[in-house]
């Protein structure tokens, strides 16, 4: 990492200074910091949640267990489900997740949150005008749909189980997982069926 003293922002200098002091004081090691950063880069993020969704779509008993207790994600080898609640979208019930106070996010299934989820605009508006927010994301709900907004104020984390799109009856579990986007699992999008799906791309 090279530093250009003309360009380096103060916050980067401060970070490096802090890390060097903490290392010298024996409070942490550079190796531990680097290893953690590598872990973040290796994390597959929302692909974890997509597998959970696909499994719930094909296996009704798993879905029942999952909705009862998020720790069912352990069946897919995913840790951390003890603090996870999965909420199910239905034709007349649409769920959406936010953390108005900071940025709490279902990291165990979605990885690190996108900047927009942590933005002041999303945090402030999701609880008071969710339909307007969804319209900005391109999702228009019918008037008879009830919107349930979950403000993640404790260590419990929420993931939306989106509705399975029509026309997917013949897809394998793996093909289904490839349709599921991060935005659908936050609740700001629906999952599109294979007719609309861009080949080889998991958007969001």
């Amino acid at each position, binding site marked *: *990492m*090279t530093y*250009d*003293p003309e360009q380096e*922002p*103060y*916050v*980067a*200098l*401060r*970070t*490096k*200074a*802090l890390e*060097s*002091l903490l*290392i*010298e*004081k*024996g*409070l942490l*090691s*550079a190796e*531990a*910091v*680097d290893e*953690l*950063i590598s872990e*973040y*880069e290796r994390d597959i993020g929302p692909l974890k949640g997509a597998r959970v969704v696909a499994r719930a779509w094909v296996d009704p008993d798993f879905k029942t267990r999952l909705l009862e207790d998020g720790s069912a994600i352990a069946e897919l080898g995913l840790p951390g489900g003890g603090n996870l609640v999965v909420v199910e979208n239905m034709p007349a019930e649409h769920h959406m997740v936010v953390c*108005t*106070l*900071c*940025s709490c996010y279902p990291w165990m299934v979605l990885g*690190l949150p*996108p*900047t*927009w989820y942590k*933005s*002041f*605009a*999303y*945090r*402030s*508006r999701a*609880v*008071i005008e969710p*339909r*307007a*927010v969804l319209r*900005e994301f391109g999702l228009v709900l019918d008037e008879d749909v*009830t*919107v*349930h*907004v979950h*403000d993640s*104020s*404790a*260590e*419990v984390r929420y993931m939306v189980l989106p509705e399975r799109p029509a026309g997917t009856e013949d897809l394998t579990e793996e093909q289904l997982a490839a349709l599921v986007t991060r935005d659908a699992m936050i609740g700001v999008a629906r999952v599109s069926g294979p007719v609309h799906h861009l080949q080889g791309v998991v958007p969001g």
Partner: protein
Amino acid sequence: MNGVHDMGGMHGFGPIVREENEPLFHAPWEAQVRAMVVIARSRGYFNIDAFRFGIERMDPAHYLRAPYFERWLASLERNLLEHSFLTSDELDDRTEYVRRHPEATLPRGVVTAPAREAQDESVEPLPASQFAVGDAVVTRNVHLPEHTRLPRYARGKRGIVQRLHGAQIFPDTNARGLGENPQPLYSICFDARELWGNSAEPRQTVSLDLWESYLEPASG
């Protein structure tokens, strides 16, 4: 505390800006900050509630203009300072050194500080819960300059218990080092009209996870 961080229902922040194919971190320092916070918490130097409270206590104008991970850095610094791991003079001096010596590399070192016992955010066994699913409750209308997870928009409001989450560490005391004091945690569902009156969108609810001491039984 009634800080600017308590944003639910605020107006004026405009459209939600989204970045296509956003990188995991926008600069190396962001990843470093995140990693340092996670390590510090895992080694028990401070707990997550103190960490959040540190962010909340930022100068409001700084909070509003700082990018996300700069808020993490601010709280990391504050908590390390308040727990006497380093002094602000040390940090200021070192930052100036780094500015004048951009070629300087991080030192090698071994971790010598003992790890304090990391906390579990979920606690067993469950103390007796005052409320059951379906109960009507009212949130307390309390405005203390302390850490809390009851947002302003949901104080003095009536809701229904939706789920029981077992006992969880109570952030209001844990953030200030006054003990974990685990309490039953509930998912409370509010009708949007209860929160926003006639300004509410139709057919909408907001659910919050709230500790027992935030709640009172609703009358009638």
